[in-house]
Every structure is written in structure tokens, then in C-alpha cells.
């Protein structure tokens, strides 16, 4: 078997089997499951809630009937007919509130007294009463139902969101835009989460092998290129496995739950396919390129650490850069046309965090998107080359000085080797 694959396989196997991986995969699932369970529980709870006992004190029996409708979930105490009785019942906590509604000359006057149990319904109650009053007055004016309809008909408001591209207005689908914005949001969180996890994993892999001198054995068995990319591909495969597990679980959950009312209520309005398409477009490119860049950087910084304990120190710069990108991204979410957001969207290390928001808000031309993609991918290739060049010599430097000192010494070794090789081959 090719040594590259031997290394890739080993890295993959070792990580997949580790307890850390299992925990890492399970925790988000548990959290999501917990939240979904809680949401489900509470929505069930509110559906099955006991009807609120109230009293309606009015001369108009039609009004009492109006509130007896099942939708209200009121339990109307029909034996209470006066305000005094109602007050006594409320004091005795037999009811949670009462309404006193006076009808006089087609004008409704209502007083609602409650122990805070009706707060959420006050607005609807008032709307219903207003409609009732409108009906009473329409009756009085002897208006036909059509006339009432035409009086109360709401104004039709149509919203069209456009994006300005090359001096022309292009109509945009608002739901499309919302999906884009939220998938941009999801991607930036996902990139952040994956960067944090996987840059830690690869930096640890590398630093561990360097610290234990396993690296020297490996580099006298296989080339640095094989080792570097073997590790990289191994770790990326672990990441893909994690994503695949989530996709599978998500799909299975969708198939299993899609017909329940609860899930229908949540996603019924959403265009799942549309969202997936959106995710599989530019967003995916930025996700892959983003994680790749940071993982390569992490491998590089990991190779600078002298021992395992230094790993966290070594990857700190990456974490800070990623955090900065993440926050600029959130900022671009709210003000996508801000100069800072625009500039950062073209800086390769930040592009994956910022550009998706600008695409979602429609503030960037297609040419701009492709420019940033080319930049990001080019940068990924460039830093792979630089990281690899340093890697060979980084792993031979065991220094107690800071990272810059290590880079300097590594650079010296690299130059010395290069010169020597040139001389030898001349």
C-alpha cells in the first residue's frame, strides 16, 4: 500500500475510534435532541392545557357564546351573572378572570379583570370585540354583508426586494434571500465549530508526533509531503465522516418525523430542497475552502510546537484569526455594504466568514464572488506549499524560544538544506 494511504488510514482509524470523536459527534446531537424534545414537550403542554376558567358578565348572550368557542380554550362559568359574583369567584380563585361587557347603542365597553392569566389574549379579545361592534353597527346601518366586507377589506401591500447589479434592478425572491441569509449564518457557525475542533485535532496529531520523535521515524520512512498530506486528508476524512453522520441522522429524523403535526408546523413553510440547493452552492465552496485553510495552518503551527503542552499556545493565533473573521461575518450580516465587510470579504482568511453574508444580501456581483473564490482557493494552495516547505525543517527544531524563534531556526535549516542540495546537484 502506498505510504500516503498508510498514514491517512492510520490517522483516520485512530481518530474515529477515539472517545473524543464519539463525544464530539454526539454532543451536538444530544443538544439538538434536547432542544427539540423540550420544544415538543412545551407545545404539547400548551395544546393540552386546561381551559382557563373565566366569567363573562354581559346582557348579550351572543357575546358569551362568542367566547365559548373551543378555540379560546375558556371554561366559562355560566352561573356568574353579576360583577360582584365574578369578583367573589376571582377572590376565591375559582376563576382566573372575568370580563364585563356593556352594550349600549351599538357601542361595546369592556372591562377585563384578571390575575395575569389572560395577558396573552387581550389583543385578540379586543379585536374580536371590535369586529362584533362593527357587525352591530353595520346591522344598525342596514348594510349588506358585501358592504361590510368592502369596508373592512385590508389594503393589499406587495413587497418586492431588488438587488442593484450593473446599474439594473433585479427582482429578488424574499424567501430565497432569507434562506441564503440563514444558510450563511449556519455556515459561519459551522466553519467556526469545525475550525475549532479540527485545527485542534491536527495540531495535536503533528505536535504529538514531533514531541515523541515519532516524526523522525516517519520522516525516515516516508517523505514529508506524504506525511503532511496524509495527515491532512486523514483529518479531513474524519470531518467528512462527522458531517455524513449528521446528514444521515438528519435525513432519518426527517423521514421519521416529517408527518407529525409538530414538525409540519416547524418546517411546513420551509423549502427544504431550496435550502439544500443553497447550501450546495457557493456556501459549500466557502465552507470547504475555509476549513481547509485553517486546518493547513493548524498543521503548520502544530509542527512549530516542541511538545504536546505547547499545542494550545501554537494554535492560538489561528483561533484569534478565525474569531475575528467570525465577528466580521456577523457584522456583515447586519451591514453587508460596510467598507470593512467589503474589504474583509476579499481577504482569503476571512472570505469564508464574510462573503456568504454579502452573497445572501445581494451586495456583491457574481464576478466579485468568483474573484473571492479564486483568491481563497489560490491562498489555500499557497499556504499548503509554504507550510509543507517549513514542515520538513520545523519538525527538526526543538527550541524553548517562542514561535518566531522556532520559525527563524527552521528557516535557517531550510535555507541551509536548500543551498546544500543545490550545490550537490550542481
Amino acid at each position, binding site marked *: 500500500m502506498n505510504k500516503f494511504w498508510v498514514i491517512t488510514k492510520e490517522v483516520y482509524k485512530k481518530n474515529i475510534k477515539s472517545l473524543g470523536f464519539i463525544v464530539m459527534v454526539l454532543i451536538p446531537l444530544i443538544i439538538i435532541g434536547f432542544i427539540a424534545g423540550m420544544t415538543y414537550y412545551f407545545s404539547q403542554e400548551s395544546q393540552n392545557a386546561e381551559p382557563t376558567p373565566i366569567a363573562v358578565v354581559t346582557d348579550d348572550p351572543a357575546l358569551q357564546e362568542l367566547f365559548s368557542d373551543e378555540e379560546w380554550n375558556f371554561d366559562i362559568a355560566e352561573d356568574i351573572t353579576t360583577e360582584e359574583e365574578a369578583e367573589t369567584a376571582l377572590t376565591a380563585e375559582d376563576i382566573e378572570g372575568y370580563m364585563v361587557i356593556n352594550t349600549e347603542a351599538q357601542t361595546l365597553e369592556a372591562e377585563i379583570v384578571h390575575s395575569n392569566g389572560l395577558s396573552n389574549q387581550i389583543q385578540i379579545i379586543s379585536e374580536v370585540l371590535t369586529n362584533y361592534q362593527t357587525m352591530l353597527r353595520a346591522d344598525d346601518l342596514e348594510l349588506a354583508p358585501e358592504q361590510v366586507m368592502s369596508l373592512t377589506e385590508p389594503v393589499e401591500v406587495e413587497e418586492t426586494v431588488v438587488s442593484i447589479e450593473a446599474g439594473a434592478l433585479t427582482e429578488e425572491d424574499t424567501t430565497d434571500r432569507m434562506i441564503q441569509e440563514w444558510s450563511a449564518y449556519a455556515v459561519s457557525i459551522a466553519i467556526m465549530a469545525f475550525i475549532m475542533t479540527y485545527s485542534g485535532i491536527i495540531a495535536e496529531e503533528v505536535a504529538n508526533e514531533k514531541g515523541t520523535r515519532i516524526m523522525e521515524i516517519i520522516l*525516515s*520512512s516516508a517523505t514529508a509531503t506524504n506525511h503532511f498530506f496524509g495527515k491532512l486528508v486523514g483529518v479531513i476524512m474524519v470531518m467528512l465522516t462527522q458531517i455524513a453522520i449528521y446528514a444521515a441522522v438528519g435525513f432519518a429524523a426527517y423521514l421519521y418525523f416529517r408527518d407529525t403535526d409538530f414538525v409540519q408546523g416547524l418546517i411546513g413553510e420551509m423549502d427544504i430542497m431550496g435550502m439544500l440547493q443553497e447550501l450546495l452552492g457557493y456556501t459549500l465552496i466557502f465552507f470547504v475552502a475555509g476549513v481547509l485553510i485553517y486546518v493547513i495552518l493548524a498543521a503548520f503551527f502544530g509542527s512549530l510546537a516542541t511538545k504536546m503542552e505547547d499545542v494550545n499556545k501554537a494554535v492560538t493565533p489561528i483561533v484569534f484569526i478565525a474569531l475575528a473573521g467570525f465577528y466580521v461575518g456577523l457584522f456583515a450580516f447586519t451591514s453587508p455594504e460596510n467598507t470593512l465587510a467589503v474589504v474583509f470579504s476579499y481577504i482569503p482568511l476571512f472570505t469564508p466568514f464574510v462573503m456568504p453574508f454579502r452573497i445572501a444580501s445581494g451586495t456583491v456581483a457574481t464576478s466579485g464572488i468568483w474573484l473571492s473564490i479564486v483568491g481563497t482557493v489560490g491562498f489555500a494552495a499557497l499556504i499548503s506549499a509554504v507550510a509543507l516547505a517549513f514542515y520538513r525543517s520545523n519538525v527538526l527544531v526543538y527550541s524553548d524560544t517562542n514561535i518566531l524563534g522556532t520559525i527563524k531556526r527552521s528557516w535557517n535549516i531550510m535555507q541551509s538544506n536548500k543551498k546544500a542540495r543545490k550545490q550537490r546537484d550542481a
Partner: protein
Amino acid sequence: MLEVKNLRKTFGGLTAVEDVSFTIRPGEIMGLIGQNGAGKTTTFRIILDLLTADQGEVLWENKRLSKKIFNKIGYLPEERGLYPKVSIENQILYFAQLRGKKKSEISPLIDDWLKKFDVKGKKTDKVKTLSKGNQQKVQLICTLIHEPELIILDEPFSGLDPVNAELLEEGIREAQSKGARIIFSSHNMNNVEELCDSLIMLKNGRQVLHGAVRDIREQFGRTKLFLESDLSKEALLEFPGVQRVEKNRDGIDIVYLTQADEGKAIFEAATRNGYIPTFSQQPPTLEEIFKRMAGERNE
């Protein structure tokens, strides 16, 4: 045959090794000695192609040593390391695969090797559950199991108890009998003296000693004399070539000579009445030579 010719490596202003040359034939063991920082690890790294020499070359069977012979190398670095969470078996298989072996070739050998080195534990045990000595033995197995033709061991004896050191010695001798070329570095001169056909001593990157162990010792002359006779210390000191006389714990006089030739006169004087239990004229031990060379200032 491994030929190392006139190696020179500098880092910035620092010369790590200078003019290092040696040859190791199949079945030969060479010891590399020198103080810390003398250039041993740099020499190893140049041979392993982790570093490129500014000057000189490393030849394997008359061709420049390159990645092509990576599979024929067994290397044990100075600091020991294995993957703590991987089982003994998988560890050995991984390193063997990196040396171009197939799993199916190595798998059946593992039990025998674990027995040979008396590793306590099952092959499915994780490395971290082993004691340090056992971990070290597992790493030795990783270094040797693919039957390398060039074996480089950086301080293989450090940390091993006498029993395990002997197991290692046996392992090295077995590889030697199969025709491997072996280099090892050690601070323990007894190991070097016992095992090596030849040795190199490095000092500040330069080769200050080179040759067969016996020849090197002889080259310093038989200036140390162990004597058990009726000659008194004063009488011994009257001989012209005698530098000083010490008595060791067993009551044997150790006579330090400036000239090996003086031994004859002392022998005659000591045996004038016939039998004496001890007369042994020896060259300095390797350890003494090491200390003397290390102490000398660079010429």
C-alpha cells in the same frame, strides 16, 4: 556497504559536523560516541536524509543514499515515543507498513518478537498501559521487525536494566548475523566495547577517534599496569617511567606509566623471586580515553 564521506554541515555560523567519514560493511557494528552536542544526532539525520550535508556524501552500495532505501532502514531516535492510545500490535504494523511491509508479512511475526524481547502484556494492550521499559522494547521491535539492512540506534541502552540491555544486545547481534550494518550511539562505553567492531568519537563536530576498538585502545599504549607483588609503592615510583601508583580496593597496585616499555623492567623486578598473582599491562579503557579526549582542548 554504507560509506559516509567527508560530511560537513553548518547552520548559520555554527559548524555541526566537519569532515566526518566512515564505512560500515554488512554485518559490522559501529559505535558513535561523543559528548552531548558533539554532532551525533546531526550525523544520523544526514544519513537519514532529514538534513542535507553542505559537503560530502552518504553512499549506499556505491550510490547516493536516497528515499529509495528508506524501506531498508531501522531507526530508533534518542527520545522514545509511541502512540499511547494504539495497541502494541497496531503500532508495530503501522511502522512496518511505513517501511513498505505488508500487514500479512508482519502480523505472524509479532508474537515471536514480543516473546524474544520478553514484553510483558498482550499485543492488544494499549501502549500506555505498559511500563517504560516495555514501551522501549516495543519500540525496538518496531525498529527491527522489518529486517532493516541499515540500523541506526540513538542511545538504545539508556534506561534499560541489565537484563533488558542483554536482550537488546542479543537483538543487535542477531541483526548483525543477518548482515545488517548497524550504528549506535551510547554513553555507556562498556556497551560500545562489547558490541562494536569499530567506533567513531566526535568532538565539536569533528572526528577525533576512528577505528577498531582494539586498535584505538592500543594506539594509546599499554600504559596501565595492574600489579600484585612484593614491590612497595616507593620502590615502584623509583622506576623512571612511572607516573604514579594507586592501590585499588582489592590491594592491587595500579601503576601508571609514561612509556609502555617500562613494563618489562617492572615485570623483571616483580618476578625476581618467581610467582606473582597479577601482572597485567593494559591500554586505557574506552571510558578513560573518552574522558581524556573530551577533556582535551581542540587542537
